[in-house]
């Protein structure tokens, strides 16, 4: 096991042990590390559905090839109840995305997106406000 993998496992364990870490549907803690990366790419296959809203981010890598990253968000029902504006993201939009690396290849947990107009899009679980205040 590489040092990088050890670090991911350790981070995952620490995250999983943190009391009240926000989770939903399939477990975020068990599927994603705490390691964040930022990518620049175009949104495709956007789906506002339960149990997870998802889209594919098409990212051009250093060799000129296009990589596809599956980006997972909260459930549609959770976004609706926080008043999320579903018009903020759409297919074809080029964004700068920050997300948590998943254990599956090319899988990210959405953290925030910067739109072409500079607007920042975030989501929050109904529980996250509580965790922030603790």
């Amino acid at each position, binding site marked *: 096991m590489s040092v990088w993998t050890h670090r991911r496992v350790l981070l995952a364990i620490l995250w999983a042990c943190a009391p009240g870490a926000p989770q939903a549907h399939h477990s975020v803690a068990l599927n994603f590390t705490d390691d964040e990366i930022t990518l620049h790419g175009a949104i495709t296959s956007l789906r506002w559905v339960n149990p997870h809203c998802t889209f594919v981010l098409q990212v051009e890598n250093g060799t000129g090839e296009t990589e596809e990253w599956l980006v997972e968000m909260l459930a549609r029902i959770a976004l609706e109840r926080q008043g999320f504006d579903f018009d903020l993201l759409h297919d074809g939009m080029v964004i700068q995305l920050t997300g948590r690396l998943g254990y599956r290849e090319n899988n990210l947990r959405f953290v925030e997106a910067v739109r072409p107009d500079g607007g920042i899009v975030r989501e929050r679980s*109904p529980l996250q406000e509580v965790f922030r205040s603790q």
Partner: protein
Amino acid sequence: MTVGVSRLAALLIAAAMYPWCAALAEPDLEGIWSIDPSLFRQYSDAQYTDEGRRRVDSYNPSTDDPSYRCVPSGLGRAWDEPDTNVEIDQMEDRVIIRYEMFDLVRTVMLDRRGHPLVFEPSTVNIEGDPMPTMGHSIGWYEDDVLVIETVGHAPGYITTLLRYIPQSEALRSIERVYRDEQDRLVVDIGYVDPITLAAPLESRNRYLRSDFGMTVYGCIPDPPGEEA
């Protein structure tokens, strides 16, 4: 009035008052509830048998979580869900518990003295598909507490949020559902599973009156086309 007539009158009065008295004894748990962020997913330390440990060690969260197929991994998973509502309807002979997550409808019969020899899951989804990981449930009232006994669980995981606790067909769970003095719903669950658990497991969740109504969840397998 003779003694016999007096006794008959007393019996008639008692029979007439029984439903009223029974109703008084039953707690009012009805309503739409959402999880209380200040108290949820409180689990005791899981102690595993060798078989339980083997199942924990072999669990792959990327593929083994039934949630990917819109199926609850177990009873605890349904109660642990943070983003959706739970609705309780109490009827004379049954309690209906609707979990908004995955559009689950759980029917807990109150007039049964035991479980059937062949278990039929008490929980179905909106399509009527049975959810065997949720087991077969019967219930009764003990003072102001609704007690639900569930057996006949299909193998799965009591929960898969934060932790994954395997369950076998031998799992027996007792839920105690009640309202506290601040009009909050409390659900305490005790789990005994001689195949996976070396000691009883306990959990507690608390719920508040929800600000939202029930909706159709309309779960779509995630990620699309991938079977866990």
